[in-house]
């Protein structure tokens, strides 16, 4: 029951071999299943996010390939309308909710503490909790599909089609509850990222020295904090309508179906930015490394990123132009949608200028980032076109919109993600991905993507509606669809080459040095892969480009890596002030814990009970959450929340 001291003056040391061995021992997890289930190591969580999100990408991709086979020619009957509806619904929900954001969470979880010069996220257990809830929510959303009970009304799930009158089966209930479930994970993750940014940067990393990748993800997560509640609530109200006969969306009871669309798109449009801004910031972070110079107009890109998110909350009605809204409302939202082009263009010009004025090295990663710029411009222009109300009326619900969304989401999410994996694979796995296979990987994906998705613009202009399981001959759509299908398979082949590259590299790739790209940020000062403790002593950051200071000579600031604060009594990191990043506290980080897994399982219990209407399961799980949270938040000395040494 010894008292814990309240203050300590940490020594400044140069770490020795014995000291680092001690740190490695202290920060590593116990072996076996216990360690696997109870770890809170951000690097392991990040890798799990990446692997799981990629699995969902492959599942969603297979669904897409089946649809493309079905649509390759007119009047095909490989799958019927019922299965086709489930395929496009599951494809959309999988890609948008279970792949696009979680993959970025994987990058951020892995890279953030390393690039910020610290040892963990602000809330390590919450971090593990977000992964478990993501995994369980993803599994939950898939429980209906194998038995033919998947949701079949598309990813935006419009009422009244999604109401119980037209859709009495469990598919929509699974989707609705799964989305609320997944929202818990997403929100908890957002809270964690924001606190990490504001509280745990290395000393000296003042607000002007924060790497741009952090800004993109931070902005997206602030948006998530205010956007996700709209969709969680929307799905909850729908579930009440379906199960308890409430009247939120029923016209006969005084409700309104457009309420669904408003709440959905108030979430939906910011969500688009949530899944592209972090990916754009990966490009902004990594592209300059392969161009051998800092990003052009770094501050302008950061401000444009933030402005995009802010404006992103004011454009949701452009998804609803065809619903018969007042003209003045459409005029306002149309103008807002045009304006958002300006901050988006800032990033594009900054990237182009970075390549133009740099000395590009044509690595696979560079190719993916450069391709992103091209695809972003094409996807941006098709979005800009549909911001005009009359054109939108013509094109809404046609394949033109399908082409647009795929140029945006594959162009600005998948391409930077694959490029980012080539870039950071030395940190993820300690190996270098093969550049020869990378060449095939890139060109197959790039050519396949454009062959597959560009013709969709034309079939859309020719009037082909989206979400039809087949179409009659003689409308002139057959050849375009055949080309699209061929392109889709070339693209899939490219993804397969990527997978082969990853597996081959893991098996027998060559060991990566600490900084193979000669990059500028702190994650490259650690070994490949980084040790469990990340940094033996915490760096003191002197500029925006810690490893390029001597050659850039932009300022006098010099980053100190070889000596720093000795924080070695259990899991410790410095907490720093928001603006100047001066160390003002020694934060005690929690180590391994089963609390996150227990909480995630209890939440699953609540949702399974709600789905089956076995209320006692939900009730019991909710009651069990109180002791579980009590255990989680127990004020032990280990986490620095109790004055006494005793453990709970």
């Amino acid at each position, binding site marked *: 029951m010894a008292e814990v001291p309240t203050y300590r003056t940490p020594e400044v040391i140069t770490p020795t071999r014995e000291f680092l061995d001690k740190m490695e021992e202290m920060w590593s997890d116990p072996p076996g299943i216990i360690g696997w289930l109870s770890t809170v190591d951000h690097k392991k969580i990040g890798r799990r996010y990446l692997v799981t999100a990629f699995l969902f990408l492959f599942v969603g991709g297979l669904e897409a390939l089946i649809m493309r086979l079905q649509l390759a020619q007119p009047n095909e009957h490989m799958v019927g309308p019922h299965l086709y509806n489930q395929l496009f619904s599951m494809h959309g929900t999988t890609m948008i909710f279970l792949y696009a954001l979680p993959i970025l969470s994987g990058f951020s979880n892995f890279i953030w503490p390393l690039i910020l010069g610290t040892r963990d996220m*602000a*809330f390590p257990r919450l971090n593990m909790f977000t992964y478990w809830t993501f995994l369980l929510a993803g599994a939950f959303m898939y429980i209906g599909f194998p038995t033919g009970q998947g949701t079949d009304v598309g990813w935006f799930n419009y009422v009244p089609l999604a109401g119980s009158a037209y859709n009495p089966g469990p598919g929509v209930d699974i989707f609705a509850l799964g989305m609320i479930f997944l929202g818990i994970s997403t929100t908890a993750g957002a809270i964690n990222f924001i606190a990490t940014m504001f509280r745990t940067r290395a000393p000296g990393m003042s607000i002007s020295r924060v790497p741009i990748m952090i800004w993109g993800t931070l902005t997206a997560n602030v948006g998530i904090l205010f956007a996700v*509640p709209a969709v969680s609530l929307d799905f909850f109200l729908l579930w009440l309508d379906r199960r308890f006969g409430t*009247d*939120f969306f029923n016209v006969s009871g*005084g409700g309104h179906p457009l*309420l669904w669309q408003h709440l959905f798109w108030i979430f939906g449009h910011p969500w688009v930015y949530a899944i592209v801004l972090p990916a754009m910031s990966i490009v902004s972070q990594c592209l300059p490394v392969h161009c051998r110079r800092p990003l052009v107009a770094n501050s302008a890109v950061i401000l444009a990123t933030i402005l995009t998110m802010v404006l992103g909350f004011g454009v949701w009605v452009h998804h609803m132009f065809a619903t018969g809204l007042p003209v003045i409302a459409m005029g306002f939202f149309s103008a807002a949608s045009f304006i958002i082009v300006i901050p988006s263009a800032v990033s594009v010009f900054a990237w182009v200028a970075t390549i133009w004025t740099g000395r590009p090295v044509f690595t696979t990663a560079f190719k993916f980032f450069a391709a992103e710029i091209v695809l972003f411009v094409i996807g941006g222009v098709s979005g800009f076109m549909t911001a005009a109300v009359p054109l939108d009326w013509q094109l809404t619900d046609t394949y033109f919109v399908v082409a647009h969304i795929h140029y945006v989401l594959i162009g600005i999410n998948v391409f930077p993600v694959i490029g980012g994996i080539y870039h950071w694979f030395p940190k993820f796995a300690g190996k270098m991905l093969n550049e020869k296979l990378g060449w095939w990987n890139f060109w197959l994906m790039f050519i396949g993507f454009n062959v597959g998705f560009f013709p969709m613009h034309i079939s859309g202009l020719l009037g082909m509606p989206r979400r039809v399981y087949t179409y009659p001959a003689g409308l002139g759509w057959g050849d375009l669809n055949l080309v699209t299908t061929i392109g889709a398979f070339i693209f899939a082949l490219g993804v397969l080459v990527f997978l082969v590259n990853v597996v081959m590299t893991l098996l027998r790739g060559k060991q990566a040095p600490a900084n193979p790209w000669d990059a500028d940020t702190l994650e490259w000062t650690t070994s490949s892969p980084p040790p469990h403790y990340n940094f033996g002593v915490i760096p003191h950051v002197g500029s925006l480009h810690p490893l390029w200071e001597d050659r850039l000579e932009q300022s006098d600031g*010099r980053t100190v890596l070889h000596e720093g604060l000795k924080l070695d009594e259990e899991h410790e990191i410095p907490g720093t002030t928001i603006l100047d990043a001066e160390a003002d506290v020694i934060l005690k980080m929690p180590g391994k814990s089963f609390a996150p897994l227990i909480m995630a399982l209890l939440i699953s219990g609540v949702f399974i009970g709600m789905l089956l209407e076995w209320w006692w399961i939900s009730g019991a799980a909710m009651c069990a959450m109180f002791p579980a949270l009590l255990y989680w938040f127990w004020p032990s000395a280990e986490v620095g929340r*109790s*004055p006494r040494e005793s453990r709970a």
Partner: protein
Amino acid sequence: MSATRVEPRDLRRPLPIGSVGNLTPGWWGMVMLIATEAAVFAYLFFSFYYLQSMADNVWPPSGKPPLPYALGTTGALFISVFTVWFASNGIRRGIKWRIWVGLPLTGLIGIAYVLLQLVDWSVEPFAFNAGAYSSLYYTITGFHLVHTIVGVLMIVALLLWTALGHITSERCNSVRVVALYWYFLVVVWIGIMTTFYVLPYVTPR
């Protein structure tokens, strides 16, 4: 020129260990939880006013709601702002007995609020699924009710931890954080009170 360069030795200074003082990670977590929960309520109010603006009939359809219980719950919650502040301010200044007065009182007021709200539900002339207005009424007050129950449970946890000696004037951040949550509950209640009980009485038909 070298004045801007920082020597690591300059960093040496006494630092608090763990959750001491203001702006701990827990505080950040609670502020963001409140932000996202506030957004939930904002979207609920958006739904209410949107459907009201679209409604053909006059809202509330079943006439003005009964006031007595709502006035009771409002009064109770307003008093609880003071009691929870009394506890959190007291422990920060090292006056431990104020926790033992302030928190139990706040918890009891919370329980009284929950009971009063349930009574209020039982006297409402409409059911959960009797149209958009009643759906919104029960959902919004129900959300607030659940949040209040969570707040009461947080207070129970604080009392347990205080009894076990985990909360001192230096390490009292959990009390501050719960107080913050409690203020949020009351602010949301002001919105609910205004929407359901004040506006129907002051807006001309």
